[in-house]
């Protein structure tokens, strides 16, 4: 990629990222608490979108089970904080590890499934986990929900919107860089090979079972981490939140943002979190307008926001190369 830095696109990208970084660091100086809270929620969704995109966008394995991983992360952190009196960092780490473990285990029976069958099996997983949250009321308090104390690291309590914003910003940027390294390395290439053609990938020495379960585990790790952070951010867990609608929302984010694109994960999360906030004044019409915008976005940008940026960046400004986007995925 270093060669790109000297090109027009490379310089533009560099300038863009510096501008975004400065903007994000300086935002709390100008924005009110409400905006900071929305931004912090946005970071949570970026984390989920990154994780889901690794599994679905890169490795080609459709998942409607991510609301379950999100719930597992959130509840693991909340339960350890409440019953175990664990502090913030071990709670979040444990949540990520537990979620990744469950992701690995779910990945095993899913090895033989693909496409719609995989989507349905993982959707079933979401529904099962949500019901378990209600049934295991001894641990999860069932339909009453759970409240979560604010996070604190070495005596510094993350109770204000400013602090929560910076905490989530740091974690999200860190995980974004990790995902970037992952997809550019051996693992990322293996994921893409599996998505494009499983038999060919196998012939080139990619261990299908190993990499598919790794994809599930890493994806669940991101999502569980996001769930745990979300628990501390919101301060309350309601089992109704972790329905299959949430899974659908996650998959919508990465498709509207752009499959197999880290930028797309960020843009998609931004689009789907900020849009409802902007439409909040529409009252009963909100969901209708939201759905209509979703349909129109797909009609005009079938490859998502990042696909559109790449395509029109090339056509109108001669940036980069004409994107080649896979037509049919996981099918």
């Amino acid at each position, binding site marked *: 990629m270093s060669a790109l830095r000297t090109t027009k696109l490379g310089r533009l990208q560099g300038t863009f990222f510096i501008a975004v970084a400065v903007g994000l660091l300086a935002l709390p100086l100008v924005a009110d608490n409400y905006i900071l809270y929305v931004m912090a929620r946005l970071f949570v969704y970026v984390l989920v979108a990154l994780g889901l995109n690794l599994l679905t966008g890169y490795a080609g394995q459709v998942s409607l089970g991510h609301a379950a991983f999100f719930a597992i992360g959130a509840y693991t952190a909340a339960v350890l904080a409440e019953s175990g009196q664990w502090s913030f960092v071990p709670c979040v780490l444990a949540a990520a590890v537990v979620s990744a473990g469950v992701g690995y285990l779910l990945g095993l029976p899913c090895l033989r499934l693909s496409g719609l069958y995989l989507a*349905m099996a993982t959707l079933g997983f979401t529904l*099962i986990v949500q019901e378990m949250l209600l049934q295991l009321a001894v641990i999860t308090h069932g339909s009453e929900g759970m409240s979560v104390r604010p996070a604190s690291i070495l005596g510094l309590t993350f109770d204000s919107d400013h602090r929560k914003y910076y905490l989530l910003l740091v974690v999200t940027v860190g995980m974004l860089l990790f995902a970037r390294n992952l997809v550019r390395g051996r693992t990322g290439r293996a994921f893409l090979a599996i998505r494009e053609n499983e038999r060919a990938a196998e012939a080139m020495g990619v261990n299908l079972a190993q990499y598919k379960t790794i994809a599930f585990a890493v994806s669940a790790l991101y999502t569980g981490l996001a769930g745990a952070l979300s628990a501390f951010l919101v301060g309350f867990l309601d089992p109704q939140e972790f329905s299959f609608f949430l899974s659908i929302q996650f998959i*919508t984010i990465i498709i509207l943002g752009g*499959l197999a694109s880290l930028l797309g994960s960020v843009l998609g999360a931004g689009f789907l979190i900020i849009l409802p906030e902007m439409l909040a004044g529409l009252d009963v019409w909100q969901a209708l307008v939201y759905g209509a915008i979703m349909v129109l976005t797909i009609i005009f940008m079938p490859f998502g926001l990042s696909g559109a940026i790449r395509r029109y960046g090339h056509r109108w400004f001669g940036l980069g190369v004409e994107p080649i986007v896979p037509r049919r995925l996981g099918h």
Partner: protein
Amino acid sequence: MAEILTSQVVSGLATGCVYALIALGFVLIFKATDVVNFAQGEFVMVSGFISYTLLVWYGLPYWVVLFATIVLSGFMGVGLERLVVRPIMDAPIFSIVIATIGASTVLRSSAGIIYGYDVLPLPTIFSKDPIRLGILSFTAMDAGVIGSSLAIMLALYLFFKLTKTGMAMRATAQSQTAARLMGVSITRIFSLTWAISAAVGGVAGVLIAPIIYLDPNLGLIGVKAFAGAILGGFGSIPGAIVGGMLLGVLENLSGYFFNAGIKQVSTYILLILVLVVRPSGLFGAASVRKV
């Protein structure tokens, strides 16, 4: 004891028949156009409201309402295909799925704006009084729903088998290129497929709404029907029918043996177990991978 059990099986079969009808809608569209229509459940919900409006607000007779609902649902299917799906026929399959999810959001919230979110009673001609035949115990409603569903399935079967249009649709499902070379208008077939799927969903709505409930979230029944289609093997018409019925019966039986929460989940546990053993469902052909 045996009577309670048989009545559970029969009423499960009735719900299962409705799942099967909706599942048929999924599979017909998928076979013809390769699209998975996540607004299929919304066809059921909207047609429920159409018949409610005609029956309760305008007081039209039941059979007129039934006919009008089927026709209007068909038009809704064509409308959705023309407005939302056709412009992006070349897009990745995921994008089309998301577009139909967007459309279902629009339909659901429109229903909410017009009718509110309270549960409305949809009148039916079938009585809910129990009928007994030996150890069999069921209601006229169960029998009516099962009979109507089977009649619709038979009608569809005859349509596909005997009419020229039906043959054109089967040809399109097999190979779009070959069908086009034989002079079949693919775009017409696509619209017709969506119309039939939506109309079948419309019948499902008229049948199921009096049994469960009528509110803007009725479309969620589409998820169960989808599960039924997957259980049977997505893309297989007998699979959709058997899968839908099986799901309805299992769901009712587990509701009888366990609590309501487990009832919702047990079917999905079973579904995952079936998929682990048969990754393409009960009737699905094992996919052949070309390198």
